[in-house]
């Protein structure tokens, strides 16, 4: 490609960069360049990721691009190793510690973009596995598919922003903060990519520690109580999860004679009915607490209120997604039977306890952060509804809504942090008429509000729309589909009620409180931290195809497998014994990820047979 061709290809990005550089009225050239850069990158990435027919044609003849097997190790390892390196840095060199942290996070983000270079076909990508404790069948096994792909990128995308924003407001114990952030990032990514239940459990628990420290050290006045509440709540679920994992592994060992913690191997196990139900609840309760679903949601408002801004952002944007993701992956994957038969009831909880209850309680909150926390309960109600409904579009909507919620709620917490840094209060009554003194802040808040409310053209709409329309067509919800749809659609009204209510109280009306008269508008640092999120709000709103196309195959496979396995599981399982499902129930692309198969010689013959047997599943 010659230079002129290159210039021609990227001119829209350059134009967007130039326009964005002129947007702010009072900023230094450096900050203008940064803002322009964000805009240019945003546009270029949309262009780059744009689904086009071209690669499909190319794929016919040429081989798919090689997947570098260590890429996931790199993404998981960078923050963890970075955290260790920071431990050995002198704490007096603040800028070195901060700069290094940001560089590591940026590197992890860039590395995670590498995941987008291969076509996301159904099945596992960047599969890597290595024996860890062979005697117990524990392997370090990581891989991504179209579902976890976006959550990994969400984690690597949000964490640097949260870190960048934290460095603006937190002035004490910077070194410890950096270590916590880096470990948190590594652990979250690890949990998203782990396919070995043991490894998953390790990462799942590892996430708790840095978050606990962040709330407990840099939090608000009541921080210790909130941190303990957060820890114990999640721990209760985790212990149950561990017990269920061990039982499942033991059952698998009895059936196959081999120890294995691998997700793909364990998927074939159908436990006896009572055990199946208990294990499903043990897994799901752990995940529901993390989501959080009603009635185990009350740790969230406390944790959010007390956490520092950066912690809140990561907590809301990424940590909660661990619960929804794990439900989709593990509860639905390992216990399809109960997940299917309980779907209608659970969806009822998601609609009543999440979408409606969460919204109504949010409406009555006086503390802005508590309000946003309850709005998270409502938004994640949509996500869970999409998962319970289990239609392809509902599940796509749910996964997209996970990303959306990460972006818009992350932005909301950043925005609340901005005003908290200035006034050291989050009580709505303290504000009023802020739009007069902080116009740029008010504008961004309004944009994010509309995204959160789900106005079309922003990201929130796409997720909610897919979930709601998926709910109505869902077979899983049976006769309740219609009622759930009505409830979920009614949530659309309530979200406007509480979000616009708080916007009006904070920004409109006369400027009565004298303390607010001279508040400075957004600082360049805050604006830069928010800019990528604002860009993403509109990118997802207008071009969701960029995201949906890459997750489509994975979702379709997961869905058809869930459908088949849940049917099989119901009929196969009996009261006493665990059983092993035949291999041809699963799609070969799914089983190919298993380490036992990866090492063995690939046999083309049975695959062809499986393909024929599964022809209708696609």
């Amino acid at each position, binding site marked *: 490609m010659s230079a002129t061709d290159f210039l021609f290809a990227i001119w829209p990005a350059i134009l967007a960069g130039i326009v964005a550089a002129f947007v702010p009225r009072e900023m230094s050239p450096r900050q203008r360049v940064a803002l322009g850069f964000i805009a240019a990158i945003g546009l270029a990435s949309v262009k780059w990721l744009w689904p086009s027919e071209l690669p499909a044609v190319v794929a016919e003849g040429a081989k798919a691009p090689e997947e570098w097997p260590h890429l996931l190790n790199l993404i998981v390892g960078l923050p963890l190793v970075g955290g260790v390196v920071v431990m050995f840095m002198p704490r007096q060199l603040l800028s070195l510690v901060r700069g290094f942290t940001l560089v590591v996070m940026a590197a992890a983000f860039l590395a995670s973009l590498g995941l987008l270079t291969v076509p996301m076909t159904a099945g596992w990508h960047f599969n890597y596995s290595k024996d860890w404790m062979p005697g117990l069948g524990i392997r370090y096994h990581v891989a991504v598919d179209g579902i976890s792909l976006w959550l990994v990128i969400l984690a690597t995308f949000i964490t640097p922003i949260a870190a960048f924003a934290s460095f603006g407001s937190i002035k004490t114990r910077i070194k410890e903060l950096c270590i916590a952030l880096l470990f948190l990032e590594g652990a979250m990514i690890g949990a998203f990519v782990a396919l070995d239940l043991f490894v998953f459990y390790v990462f799942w628990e590892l996430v708790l520690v840095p978050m606990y420290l962040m709330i407990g050290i840099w939090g608000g006045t009541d921080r210790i109580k909130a941190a303990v509440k957060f820890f114990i709540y999640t721990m209760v679920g985790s212990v149950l999860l561990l017990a269920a994992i061990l039982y499942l592994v033991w059952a698998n060992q009895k059936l196959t004679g081999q120890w294995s913690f691998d997700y793909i191997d364990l998927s074939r196990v159908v436990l006896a009915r009572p055990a199946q139900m208990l294990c499903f609840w043990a897994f799901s309760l752990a995940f529901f607490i993390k989501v959080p679903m009603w009635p185990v949601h009350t740790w969230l408002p406390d944790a959010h209120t007390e956490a520092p801004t950066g912690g809140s952002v990561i907590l809301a944007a990424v940590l909660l997604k661990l619960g929804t993701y794990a439900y989709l992956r593990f509860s639905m994957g390992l216990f399809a039977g109960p997940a299917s038969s309980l779907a209608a009831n659970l969806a009822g909880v998601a609609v009543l306890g999440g979408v409606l*209850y969460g919204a109504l309680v949010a409406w009555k909150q006086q503390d802005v952060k508590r309000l946003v926390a309850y709005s998270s309960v409502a938004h994640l109600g949509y996500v869970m509804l999409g998962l319970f409904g289990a239609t392809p579009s509902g599940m796509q909507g749910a996964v997209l809504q996970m990303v959306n919620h990460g972006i818009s709620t992350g932005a909301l917490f950043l925005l609340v942090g901005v005003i908290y840094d200035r006034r050291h209060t989050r009580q709505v009554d303290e504000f009023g008429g802020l739009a007069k003194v902080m116009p740029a802040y008010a504008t961004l808040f309004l944009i994010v509000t509309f995204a959160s409310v789900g106005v079309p053209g922003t990201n929130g709409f796409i997720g909610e729309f897919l979930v709601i329309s998926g709910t109505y067509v869902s077979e*899983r919800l049976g006769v309740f589909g219609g009622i759930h749809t009505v409830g979920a659609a009614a949530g659309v009204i309530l979200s406007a009620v509480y979000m616009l209510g708080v916007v009006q109280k904070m920004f*409109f009306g006369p400027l009565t409180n004298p303390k607010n008269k001279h508040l400075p508008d957004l600082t360049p640092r805050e604006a830069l931290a928010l800019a990528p999120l604002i860009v993403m709000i509109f990118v997802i709103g207008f*071009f969701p195809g960029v995201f*949906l196309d890459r997750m489509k195959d994975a979702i379709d496979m997961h869905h058809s497998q869930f459908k088949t396995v849940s049917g099989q599981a119901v009929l196969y399982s009996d009261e006493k014994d665990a059983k092993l499902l035949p291999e041809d129930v699963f799609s070969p692309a799914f089983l190919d990820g298993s380490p036992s198969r990866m090492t063995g010689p690939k046999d083309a013959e049975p695959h062809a047979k499986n393909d024929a047997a599964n022809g209708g599943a696609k």
Partner: protein
Amino acid sequence: METLRTLFPASNFALLAVILGLPLLGAFVNGVFGKRLGKEGVRAMALAAIGGAFLFSVVTFLMLPHAAAEGAPAEKLVWNAWRWMSVTGRMGQSIPIDVAFSVDAMSATMMLVVTGIGFLIHLYSVEYMWEDPGFARFFAYLNLFIFAMLVLITGDNLAVLFVGWEGVGMCSYLLIGFWFTDEKNASAGKKAFIVNRIGDFGLILAISMLVYYVGSLTWNGIEANAGALLTPVKIWPIGNLSAETLPGFLAKILIPAKPVQVYASTLVGLALFLGCAGKSAQLPLYVWLPDAMAGPTPVSALIHAATMVTAGVYLVARLSVVFLLSPAAMATVAITGVATALFAASIGFFQTDLKKVLAYSTVSQLGFMFIGVGVGAFAAGFFHVFTHAFFKACLFLGAGSVIHAMHARIHDVNKSQDMRNMGGLGRYMPITRWTFLISCFAIAGFPMSAGFWSKDEILWKAFSNLPLAPPASKTVPMWAWPANLGPAIYWLGILAATMTSFYMFRAYFMTFHGKFRGWEIVKGWKAPASHGHDDHAHDDHHEAEESLEGPTPRESPWKMTLPLVVLATGAAFAGFLMAEPIHIAPLGHLLEPVFEHASKAMTEREGAKGLMWPMMLPGLGAFLAGTGAAMYVYLNRAGEPERAFAASSPRFYKLLVDKWRIDELYDATVVGMVDALADIFTMADKWIVDGILAKLTAGVVALLGTILRAVQTGRVQVYAASMVIGLLGIGWFIVQPHAAATIDDTKLKQNGQVVLAAAPGLGYSYLWEGPGIPPAKDYSPVNQLSVRLDPGEKKDIVLHVRNAFERETTTTIPLARAGAKRMGDPGQNQVPEVRQLPTGPIPGERIQELLKPGGFQ
């Protein structure tokens, strides 16, 4: 033209991108760079954007492909931008949703109205808002509104329409609350958005149902597959509610003998109409529109009169194919329309705020439009949208012009809009007065004016049309229109028209005739130097109202009067675009292909033939009666009869002035209930959910800890004492003998043999007793016993145990063997059959049925 056609072929009509892009560009530039551009720059950008959009809209209109031959469906101009997403349909089929736009005669006409009237109102606003500090912001919002409105009318599917639908709602929110420093304005904006959202709730439901039943969201797809909506749907009892799951008395009340079934088309139609009622301010969701007058007057003219609020009518007309499949939904639309028309007109009777009168008249006129589309006269309903845009925009801009003049001396928003402070302005503001008068004639239905043709057409169609029942299934009867519903709507419509002409002319006479009541006119009066033009300064010097002096009210500058003149011309003559009775109907011909299916689904009611001209007379009478009464009361008697009426029945008068206190009713019922529910939930969340899960469990753990801590005193004596107690307990246990045995009955089924093994212990010896056991003399260390049972036999074995301390105990072990039954007993011998599953996926419909037999619950 030919070049344009080759450049923009009908199947890839990218010119739409320009039309849509210009206002969006204007919004972006004005919003972000507005302060730096300066007012002149903002003005140039805004006017150029909308003007350009208007020019290209005209080009689009001219390029509309004409129906090639009779009966052939007219082609549309289509621009398919990109694939937005795809959703899953009924049988797992994937339904693509594109960001696609299309133009046919109806949307092209709408585009002309939106951009044309939009341009005039932009021009007007330049003058009206010139002094406002938020000048750039205002035009950014206004341009954004035009963009959203264009998306709404050109969207090729329901999802894209929904983008525009919510987009205009959002712009309306921003513009109503434009002067946000006043709490009241911000609240009005919020109210508008939330009430609109209630409508959107219906629209989302309708979209979901269309996805399920029709499997398409594009206009063409819905039209092609709408027949699928004729499926009966059970709506009551919902879910798994049935006589078995409810307690008896409730079941008797709630569960009917036969489940209530309606057609999907009715459900979809009603859900759609809920959306339309929200956006177009129909009963019961009209309450936001009068409050929306808090926005700047040009906004009221553009958004809350001419364009946005008519979107509901547009949607019903656009999806006429769905409504035609459900006479019940159509009747709901028509009846709601006529009820709203009457109700809003009654409120409009005695309002004193000029803009409020116009607001209620808008609600009332929207009711007329819904009568039109409800009785199947889609073209007529849409035509009323068209004419109404002219005269109502003109009326609002005229009101704005008057308010602008009043602002010379009165700055309080409410007082400057109060007609009791006006009067006699016709003398000072001739252009405003005449254009206002022409529009009043149009809205009141003066013969040959725009409103006459459209309103008359609607009422005539209400009288004469009878929707044909669509082919229905045999099990569920299709609701059919009663024969006298049409005439009833007609006569009620006439009544509403009479009221319309009365209150419109009341407004006209109160504003432009009589004596000026605003202030004492002093020739050559000069404003005090400190005085600034600020709409919101609640200046103190208005307190002394009696002695207010001021200059002569002045006519507004040309930028404000030019739009008035253009719009008034339209109000006078636009009717001839579709004057059906005299067969001059170019617009009607253009719209014919759009509503072709609609005309096929309609028939003329018996007895209406040839009555077209006679049935115009009541309409004419309505105009004469209303106008005459208003003239008598307000011109000749200067409002004396109104005061007399207020004095004679003060409570009724007050009720009308207070708008039937519907807002208060809603506050007390719906809002109050939701509010109470939210309070209850918040309390429950704090004290019950969190209380039980967190505080109670923590309390239990703490209590246990407290108890255990009490023991952990650190005193050796206490520990030694507890050790001794423990040892004693163990010793007591050892000294006591315990008789217990494990029973091995694995061979019971085969040969009836049971082996008993007594539990061992310190120096235990055993003695077994029972039928068929050789009696032992003394205790022996043999702890095993084998017993044989015949089928059906029962035995009680007694076990004696003696321990090392010579203490004894006894227990009885009952044994039993099942009776001999015939062979092949299903309960005993049959191996549970493992059902052979179909490999591969199980079709979704079967899952429920497969679940039931051995399900978990």
